[in-house]
C-alpha cells in the first residue's frame, strides 16, 4: 500500500507550517488582509517571485490505490516574498487569486519569525473557526441523508 500519511520524518515545525499554509489556502483574501492587519505587519515584504498563475496536473490513482494517472490540470497561483529580516515565505493555492497568494506568502514568512509564530496562528484563528463551523454544518446536512436500512419482511421466516 502506498503511504499517504505525511512523511514520518515530518517535524512538528513542518506540520505546523503546513497547517498554516492550508489555513491560508482556505481563507478568503479579506480574511488574510484582516490577519495581517491584526498582526500589525507593517514591514513590507519584497517580492522574491511576483504572484503568478500556472497549472498543476492533478493525479489520481488507478482503482483509487494503484499507479498514478493524470486526471486533469488545475489552476494554481503562487507567490514568494522575503521579509527585511531575510525570512522567505511561499504560497501555492488553487485558483487565480494573485493578491491572496501574496498575502499568504507574507503570512508564511512571518510565521517563520519564531517570536511571531504564535501571533500569526492566533491571527488566523478566525479562519479556522469559520471553516470548522462550516464543516460541522455540512456534516450535519450530509448525516441527515444517511440511509438506515431495516428489513420489512423476510420471505422464508
Amino acid at each position, binding site marked *: 500500500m*502506498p503511504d499517504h500519511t505525511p512523511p514520518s520524518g515530518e517535524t512538528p515545525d513542518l506540520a505546523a507550517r503546513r497547517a498554516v499554509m492550508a489555513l491560508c489556502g*482556505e481563507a478568503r483574501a479579506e480574511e488574510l488582509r484582516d490577519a495581517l492587519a491584526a498582526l500589525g505587519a507593517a514591514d513590507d515584504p519584497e517580492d522574491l517571485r511576483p504572484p503568478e498563475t500556472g*497549472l*498543476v496536473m492533478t493525479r489520481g490513482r488507478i482503482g*483509487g490505490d494503484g499507479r498514478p*494517472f493524470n486526471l486533469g490540470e488545475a489552476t494554481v497561483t503562487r507567490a514568494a516574498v522575503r521579509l527585511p529580516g531575510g525570512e522567505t515565505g511561499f504560497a501555492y493555492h*488553487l485558483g487565480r487569486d494573485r493578491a491572496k497568494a501574496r498575502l499568504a506568502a507574507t503570512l508564511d514568512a512571518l510565521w517563520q519569525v519564531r517570536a511571531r509564530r504564535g501571533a500569526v496562528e492566533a491571527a488566523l484563528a478566525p479562519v479556522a473557526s469559520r471553516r470548522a463551523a462550516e464543516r460541522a454544518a455540512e456534516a450535519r446536512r450530509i448525516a*441527515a441523508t444517511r*440511509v438506515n*436500512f431495516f428489513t420489512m419482511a423476510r420471505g422464508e421466516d
Partner: protein
Amino acid sequence: MYVAVKGGEAAIANAHRLLAETRRGDTNVPELSVAQIREQMALLVDRVMTEGSLHDPDLAALALKQARGDLIEAVFLVRAYRTTLPRFGASEPVETGAMSLRRRISATYKDLPGGQVLGPTFDYTHRLIDFALAAEGEAPVAAEAEPLADAAHAPRVTDLLGRDGLIEPSAPDDGSAPGDLTREPLDFPADRALRLQALARGDEGFVLALGYSTQRGYGRTHPFVGEIRVGTVAVEFVPEELGFAVPLGEIDLTECQMVNQFHGSAEVPPQFTRGYGLAFGQSERKAMAMALVDRALRAEELGEPVGAPAQDQEFVLAHCDALQATGFVEHLKLPHYVDFQAELELVRRLRAEHAARHGRHETEMKEAAE
C-alpha cells in the same frame, strides 16, 4: 486545400458584435453573473471542468457564459486558456480513501463501515417539473442530523473485498511518472493510465454510449457499482524550492469503483476485477460510464475475447475527445472552394465521358421507340 481569400473582415467583425448582443439576450431580463452560473449551474460547471481537463469553477462558469451555454464551446475556451499558462508540475496523487464524503453509495453491500449517504442527488426524485422553481422564493433549508461516530471512516468497498482476496489488487505504484497525453501524442497501445486520462476528459455522451453498449452485449463486463463516492479531497504539490508537500486546497471529485466478474485463467483464480472512473466535481454519470469503458478496454489484458467497439482502444480513445471531434466535423464548414472546384471539374469530365460512351446507345433507343 485551403486558399487565402479576403473580403470577410467587416462581416466577421459585425458577426462578432451581433454574437455579443445576442449572447446578452433581452436586456429587460437581468444579466447572469458568473457567480450565479458557478453556484446554480454547478453540474454543468463540473462537466466543463472535467472535459476541459482544467479545475477552476470560476473560469468554467465564465466560459459557459461566453459560450452562451454551449458545452463544447466552453470546453474549447477552457482548453485554449490552459495553453497560455506555465505548468508548475504534477500534484501528489489524491487520496480518495480519505475523501470528505458528501455522497457515498454501494450497490454491492447494504451495510458498510461509514454507511450509505445519499447526499444531494436526483435519485428517487419523481422527475416532475417543479413550477415553484419558476418563481422566486425563500432559499430551501436542508434537514440536519447528528453525524454518527463512524462517518469519518469510510474505507473503499474495493478495500473490503481486497482483504479476502476476492478482487484483483490494483497494480502497485512503481514510482514512475504516468504518461501525459497533453505532452506527448497518444500512441497505441496506450497503457491504462493514459486511457484513464483520455476517458476522464472524454465527452460524457460518447463515453456514456460506449458504456451502455457494453451493457447491451457489445463486450459484456457484468458490472456492479461497488461504490460511488462524491466529496472533497486535499490536493498537495511538492514545489522544487520547498521540497515538502504544500497543501494547494481542496477539490470536489466523483469516484466510481465498478466491480466486474472474471472467470479466472490458468494463473489467476476466479475473482472480481475493477473498472475505475474519476471526474472533477459531482459527475456521477461520467464516472460510472468511464468505469464501464475502462473495464471494457482491459479485455485483452484479461484474456477475454475482443471485438466490440468499447474494447477497441484506438476507436475509443481516438474519438472520445469532444473538442477533437468537433474540430474535425466543424472544419467542414470552412471554405473549401478550391477543393470543391477540383471535384466539380472531375464530375463534369466524368459526365462528358459517360455521355460519349452511352450517347450513341441512347440515340438508338430513342429512334427505336419513335
